[in-house]
């Protein structure tokens, strides 16, 4: 089992980041996502927008990984549930794979909130739990996948803003914290104090795992 987490600070206010996040694909820097569909969307009694989406992706797994997994099929499907609270200014997104599940399980959780120190900035907390099942090279594959997720996350972060701002910007400027390296450490400290970060790998695993597993029941419900 591999656990991966990161915090990132965007130099943009929450509204701008959320608009970009909702339109994250297509992303020429991360062409792995080849299809996105909305399966359900509604506003709940508390004014929060729920969306259930189906993503089709080409993992771009190294061919060694494909050979070990014993599958030549590279198109995989992912279910995603997001909740946007415009009053509390929080967007939470959970996703889990629904194919290749006897081989690998990837549960991801993303939370976007305003920067606690500066409302012109936004914090993204991202967590993923990756489990490769029943293979002796399991932890090696998990590391490869975690690296893929990490580099895809960086690409996603950069390009979505190029689109929203409607002008050419160097995506690398947007995706690297730059002078906000200190800001990131400060944010982490603050988030830890407010118990918004998981305090242990076990807690992180629990949160990301529960997030992904709940999706299965919801989708069963939606289509029955």
């Amino acid at each position: 089992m591999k656990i991966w987490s990161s915090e990132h600070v965007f130099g943009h206010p929450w509204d701008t980041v959320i608009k970009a996040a909702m339109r994250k694909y297509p992303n020429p820097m991360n062409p792995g996502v080849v299809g996105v569909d909305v399966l359900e969307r509604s506003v709940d009694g508390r004014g929060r927008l729920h969306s259930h989406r189906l993503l089709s992706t080409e993992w771009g797994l190294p061919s060694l990984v494909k050979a070990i997994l014993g599958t030549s099929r590279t198109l995989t499907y992912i279910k995603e549930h997001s909740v946007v609270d415009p009053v509390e200014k929080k967007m939470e997104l959970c996703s889990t794979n629904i194919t290749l599940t006897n081989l690998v399980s990837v549960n991801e959780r993303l939370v976007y909130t305003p920067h606690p120190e500066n409302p012109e900035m936004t914090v993204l907390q991202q967590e993923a739990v990756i489990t490769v099942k029943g293979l002796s090279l399991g932890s090696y594959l998990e590391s490869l996948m975690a690296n893929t997720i990490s580099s895809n996350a960086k690409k996603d972060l950069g390009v979505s803003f190029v689109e929203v701002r409607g002008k050419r910007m160097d995506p690398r400027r947007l995706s690297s914290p730059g002078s906000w390296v200190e800001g990131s450490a400060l944010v982490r400290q603050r988030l830890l104090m407010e118990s918004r970060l998981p305090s242990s790998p076990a807690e992180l695993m629990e949160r990301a795992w529960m997030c992904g597993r709940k999706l299965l029941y919801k989708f069963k419900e939606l289509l029955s």
Partner: protein
Amino acid sequence: MNSVGEACTDMKREYDQCFNRWFAEKFLKGDGSGDPCTDLFKRYQQCVQKAIKEKEIPIEGLEFMGRGKEKPESSS
């Protein structure tokens, strides 16, 4: 961006445009009531549900791959 069902891509794009506008101009500004995209969404949905069934995408459960395909337990 394409839809999972090739035939649904145009409907999807129409719906997405409508949604993105409503999301940015109404929902995020505190006006979540009223959804101008319902009709577009219904048509798009019908197409997607059909594509999911045709492609046998395992929305309801889990799909197993490799080393002898196992049938997932069916509870419905």
